[in-house]
């Protein structure tokens, strides 16, 4: 079933992109000028960027990995309520664990994760969410997710970080 989904998705995206580019090229070649089409193409890609409130990670401050544990707020990695229904999670990623590795929040919460590495490059991905960010020594990684459905969401390190990379994970438990 999932395979079919993937196949249909891939064919749809590929097919539509192909069709669109072919039509544009055709217009250009036949002298029906390209400026309008080019603008339309740019708008289409742009709409993909800004649609649905999806935001890519952006600079959220620098930090020294050697002194992460002494630098607020990373001196106290934990879950903290900041407003009704809003939480902030301060996470340290190190070879080869997340601290803390179990996070409990009520359903419907908006959770802001602030992650910093204490050593090498790590990754931070939470299954079934849009949370996917690199955790690079020297940079604070900041991502936000809303957890509507109760259950366990596994988060894991998705960047190779040494011998025990595959041991590095934790859970968000939505109650």
């Amino acid at each position, binding site marked *: 079933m*999932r*395979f079919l989904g*993937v196949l249909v998705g*891939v*064919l749809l*995206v*590929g097919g539509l*992109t*192909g069709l669109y*580019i072919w039509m544009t*090229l055709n217009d250009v070649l036949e002298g029906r000028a390209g400026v309008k089409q080019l603008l339309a*193409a*740019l708008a289409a*890609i742009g709409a*993909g*960027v800004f*649609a649905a409130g*999806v935001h*890519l*990670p*952006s*600079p*959220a401050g*620098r930090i*020294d*990995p*050697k002194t992460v544990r002494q630098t607020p707020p990373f001196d106290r990695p934990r879950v903290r309520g900041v407003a009704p229904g809003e939480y902030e999670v301060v996470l340290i990623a190190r*070879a080869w664990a997340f601290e803390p590795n179990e996070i409990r929040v009520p359903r419907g919460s908006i959770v802001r994760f602030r992650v910093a590495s204490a*050593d*090498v*490059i790590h990754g931070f*991905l939470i*299954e079934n969410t*849009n*949370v*996917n*960010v*690199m*955790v*690079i*020594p*020297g*940079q*604070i*990684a*900041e991502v936000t997710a809303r957890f509507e459905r109760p259950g366990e969401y*596994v988060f*894991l*390190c*998705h*960047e*190779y*970080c*040494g*011998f*025990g*990379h*595959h*041991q590095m*994970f934790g859970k968000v438990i939505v109650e």
Partner: protein
Amino acid sequence: MSSIARPAEVGHIEAGETIYLAEQLWPIRGQLFLGLLGLALGGYMGLLQALERIGINLYSAHLLKSYYQGLTIHGMLLAFLFTFSFSNSFLSLTTIRGFQRPLASISLAHGAFLTMLAGTVLAAFATLTNQATVLFTFYAPLKASSLFYLGAVFLVLSTWLTSANQLLTLRAWRREHPGEPIPLLGFVSVVTYLMWDLASVGVAILVVVFLLPWSLGILSSVDPQFELVLFWFTGHPIVYFWLLPAYVSWYLLIPAQVGGRLFSDDLTRFVFLLFLIPSTPTGLHHQFTDPGLPRAMKTVHLFTTFAVVYPSFITAFTVMAALEWGGRARGARGLLGWIRALPWKDPSVTAQLLAMLVFTLGGATGIVNASYSVNLVVHNTAFVPGHFHMTVGTTVALTAMGVCYWLIPFISGRELWGRRLALAQAWLRAIGMLIFARGQIAGGLSGMPRRTAIGDAAYLGLFKWSLDNWLTAIGGIVMTTSGLLFFVVVLGTLFFSRPLTEPIEIPVAEVVHSAGERWPLFDRLSLWFLIAVGLVVVAYGPVILGYLPLNSVSPPIKVY
């Protein structure tokens, strides 16, 4: 520099109008065999990875410390050694064939082989002794032995020497043919390397200015975020350096092999220039999820990335047209009869046709990766290796194997041995890869990370990845069978086959639209190169200026 054809001597090839000198052929042969050795060992490491997925861990049995040591060997040998060596040897030959003259410099030709060999020995020593288990991305602050970085320098140097030799050959040819258009085969060979010359600047600075001194203790710390910018400056366009030799074969050789013609001389030049110009200013689409880079520049690189999709679509139509002409010239009727009429019994052709088919899926998944928002679903998941095993792992590798089915006979002077085995090899490779990629792609969509020993992962029991892992493993086994057949055919050709009755010439397509319709500006390579440099400055200038000052906080760390 020697530009005069010598009299007949042992080891040289005289085919049609072209003379391939023995002293230039041995480094070309040497690099081809070095690359094939890399393909064999690197491919074998792939089998170990596939088996790890279903709980069969063979690493200690191979004296390897970890999955990741095997993965480093896999990536280094296949992504760097095999691709670089194959490009160097194949595109040196097409340069000779295209310009109908020897390479301008014997010493550069020899130097390319010797630096490739030196780089291989250094990097192999470091990885085999577990002093460089940093994967082929070698992200700082994971530290490898200095020998590893030095090896990387030599491998890149080898491609630069090849490029320099091509450019000297072009200059010599221009002196001999003033005012004539650059022969198309020579043009595409030279432009492929020009693209790479510009693209490789990032990784050259990364290794020479930062990582090598850092590994030697001269620099105490580096900035990992900035190192990633330099890495991906090269890390994206390197895929076009892998791909373009395949395009050279599809555009200019395959039409001749199937009895078709190439549609347009101008369009072909245009496509290769489109790869030269927007290939490099796109690297940030590999860094959409990096915390240290602003959204605005990620968006700019998104647009340039989509610009590089265009030449591949033109390629799809051009190559299909050539194939259709070929099929119809062979007596095909009806709308699709030409497909069946293609020479499917010729392993060289079949391998490359299958490589093209798989590329449609590989290209489509690449567009998924590059999409701004969908990238959040797939970044660093197994979806990505699912994608690039269809592109570089099949489109490029299977095309290279198809090329080898005439290239090995060409350089050894022996007939292809085991034609039916070679045919089976091509089909098994494509089918195995589709099974493998389905496993990786589906796994990735449900959060399976890439570059991870999944079979041993602490969270394996929390996911439903069983089917995905089995498909990955089965695909890997089928591809290993295919790889085995490939080397049986190569060794059979080299050692058990009959000598050729007459030498093979490198097939080159006839062009439908060529003389008299040309746009002379296409041949002004220095102009196009400058435009490419300008675009890189526009796309990367704000990224780097906006990022400074460097945040050099990371000392070397060895945790493998």
